[in-house]
């Protein structure tokens, strides 16, 4: 049972990261490979805010959220807007976002150096709860709460607000959206901002969870994030949530029963499995485009 909970905590972070990915893909049909860099940079920033500026870890979360949104706007401006209208935009977007991500990581290296950073020990609350033989720390609850809260907030935004309707319109039919008077450029920028904000919070939450941040955390989660969105269905918010949690749980069980060194394979096992059986993912669109 403890394991199940651990799986859910880790899974909620995966889900939060993946939802940023799938949001951009769903609305704009683009894969933003700088998302992992946003994740990593925000983790380091979170630690700096707490360790050097004395912020409480709770305050670090909204700070990082805003920072992430700014990064998202920069990514959109540098890597995607200049490609508008080009017929190789999909492919070029992958490369340009890799490039911008690389630039972020280099700047990260400049500021923090290559070593792992940690939170100061006293930054974390020590409260924990016992529930029927299972131990949950306050920190874990907050991670779960923030993740779920943000994801549900996003779902609410997309389904119930004007902006969300605009995003869904652009996702389904950008031409029709334009005809309707939707400001597609503004919706695009906002989508990137939201997506990166979520990715940034995921980064700082993971840093909380493992009490460290290192340069390689981005690669690792990027691949898992990609696996999650394929399993869940590209462009499906529900899919990213379910897929993320499923991955968290699956990993925990794999470690339990097979061995910890095989943990990372789980994501790809799921990925290939889904691609063979149901390529559009669990919640993906019904049919792949025909002639």
């Amino acid at each position: 049972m403890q394991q199940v909970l651990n799986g859910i905590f880790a899974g909620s972070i995966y889900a939060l990261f993946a939802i940023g990915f799938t949001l951009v893909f769903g609305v704009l049909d683009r894969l933003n490979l700088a998302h992992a860099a946003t994740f990593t940079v925000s983790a380091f920033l979170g630690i700096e805010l707490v360790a050097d500026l004395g912020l409480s870890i709770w305050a670090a979360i909204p700070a990082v959220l805003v920072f992430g949104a700014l990064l998202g706007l920069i990514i959109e401006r540098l890597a995607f807007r200049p490609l508008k209208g080009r017929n190789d935009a999909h492919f070029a977007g992958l490369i340009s976002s890799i490039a911008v991500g690389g630039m972020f990581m280099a700047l990260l290296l400049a500021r923090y150096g290559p070593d792992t950073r940690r939170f100061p020990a006293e930054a974390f609350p020590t409260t924990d709860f016992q529930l029927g033989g299972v131990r949950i720390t306050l920190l874990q609850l907050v991670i779960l709460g923030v993740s779920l809260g943000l994801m549900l907030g996003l779902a609410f935004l997309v389904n119930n607000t004007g902006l969300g309707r605009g995003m869904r319109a652009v996702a389904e039919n950008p031409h029709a959206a334009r005809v309707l008077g939707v400001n597609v450029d503004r919706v695009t920028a906002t989508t990137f901002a939201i997506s990166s904000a979520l990715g940034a919070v995921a980064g700082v939450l993971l840093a909380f969870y493992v009490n460290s941040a290192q340069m390689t955390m981005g690669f690792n989660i990027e691949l898992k994030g990609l696996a999650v969105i394929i399993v869940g269905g590209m462009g499906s918010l529900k899919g990213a949530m379910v897929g993320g949690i499923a991955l968290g749980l699956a990993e925990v069980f794999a470690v339990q029963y097979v061995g910890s060194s095989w943990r990372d394979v789980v994501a790809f096992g799921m990925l290939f499995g889904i691609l063979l059986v149901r390529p559009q993912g669990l919640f993906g669109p019904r049919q792949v485009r025909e002639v």
Partner: protein
Amino acid sequence: MLSDYSATLTLIALTAIFAYSFYAVLLAGQLSLGQAGLASLAGFSATIVVPDDPIAGLSPLVVGIPVGMAVGALVAFLLGLPVMRLRGVFLAIATLGFGEMVRIVLINAEWTGGAQGTTLPKLVTPGIAWGALLLVAYWFWRLGGSRLGRALAALREDELAARAMGVDVSRYRMTAFVTSGAVAGLYGVLIAYFSRFITPDDFGFSAAVDGLVTAVVGGSLMFLGPLLGSAFLTSVPEVQRALGVEAGWIRPFLSSALLLVVILFLPGGLSSLIPRWRSPKVDPDVSPPELAPLPARGSPVLSLTGLGKAYGGLHAVRDVDLELRSGEVLGLIGPNGAGKTTLVNLISGLAAPTSGSGTVLGRELGPIGRGHLFAKAGVSRTFQHSKLFDRLTVLENALVGAHVVSRPTLLRRLLWLPSARRDEQRALAQAGAQLTRVGLGDRAGVPAGELAYGDRRRLEIARALAGHPTLLILDEPAAGMNHVEARELSTLIRSLADDGITVLLIEHNVRMVLETCTRILVLNFGEVIAAGDPATIAKDPVVIEAYLGSDGPADTRV
């Protein structure tokens, strides 16, 4: 100092080979990122079989290289089977995932040494590295002018049009994939015995990304691309070092920024800066290939019974019966959305019927994926919104059209066999003849994307004709043409019919249809509402109403 340069030179060669493995799939328009995983498997497999001592005076690599390439090719084939049908981003992610799985499996395996890695003797000299590179570059150079190379370029530009020209898309995609695997395998073996120490982590995500970046920076439109990309990217850190830029963060920052600049402003990569030499000239003394004679007038060409296509609840085409015989020019007219293009997609094998049946030149209409077989059977077509291969020249477009009547040349080109040149020339003659027929003979070297509109339509026809079709389907060929151009087109179509080609013509220009066709079929809402010869159709009130519209419920005037 000298050994420094020797290492750099070798590294340039090896990085270029790795980039070629990406190039091999980019040629076909696929973004596969599993090459690092393939290289890893090949490298580690080679460590098992490569002996410690030379064999008969030859380097032990003589065993290692073929094994590595075979492993790379085989695994690529196995990976390709499930993954080939994925497109674009999905393919990239799946192959990336594959690479990651390989890394983890190998890290956990004992025979690779796990994270500790394996130590190996240094067997790769700059000579061997450059020798291998030159062979790989040679292969891709010869590929460029071959039938296969052109088919890959076509399928990268427009898969559907390539299929309609008879290119077996799945098979060629797999060929590119397997080639990529073999080249990645070669790289894996060489880098192992150059670095003298490898771990599975060396072939992870960042290695895959580096390889992709090299291929993209160099450019995937020309065979020198990977070499240029490798030379450039390997020298950037050297230049930075020479300029006193310290290691640390500035170098990766500048490299990434450079990558961004290249992709934004130089989409074809560095190799796009090299002026392309023009296509080979057509040798006037060589005659077109021996082509099978067209069927006799009056023999059946196509037969449709109750044919229908429904998308969900929407009937695009409903219950169409049609017989077409050789020598006819059949016009298909009807208002917008009447189902004409859908019907034609069914006939040319690019869509599958949901009801009824039909036979075209002996081929049963059935599930899609076999579209290229219709081209082989003698069906050729143009598209409503022109689907030219824009980055290929006019002549190359026509050459792709001649795919079904020309012979594969790559293997013979590698050996510079004269018979390959003869076959190429024959294909060129065929393509050139069709270009002349439509009046584009003097624009052969122009990239198709730069043609004026009328010329684009004509090139589409020339391309379709290059395949020596029995049935030629023209989908709105006169769209956007003025009366004079339309009349010229009409004359051309009649001359084609005189030559024995059966023509099926979709057009909105009703006057042109009335002048050109021997028989006319009128569609509305997916059904045939009238059929007959031009004179009858022109006066048919049902037809007139379908076009001009009715006046409303109370009015029955025509």
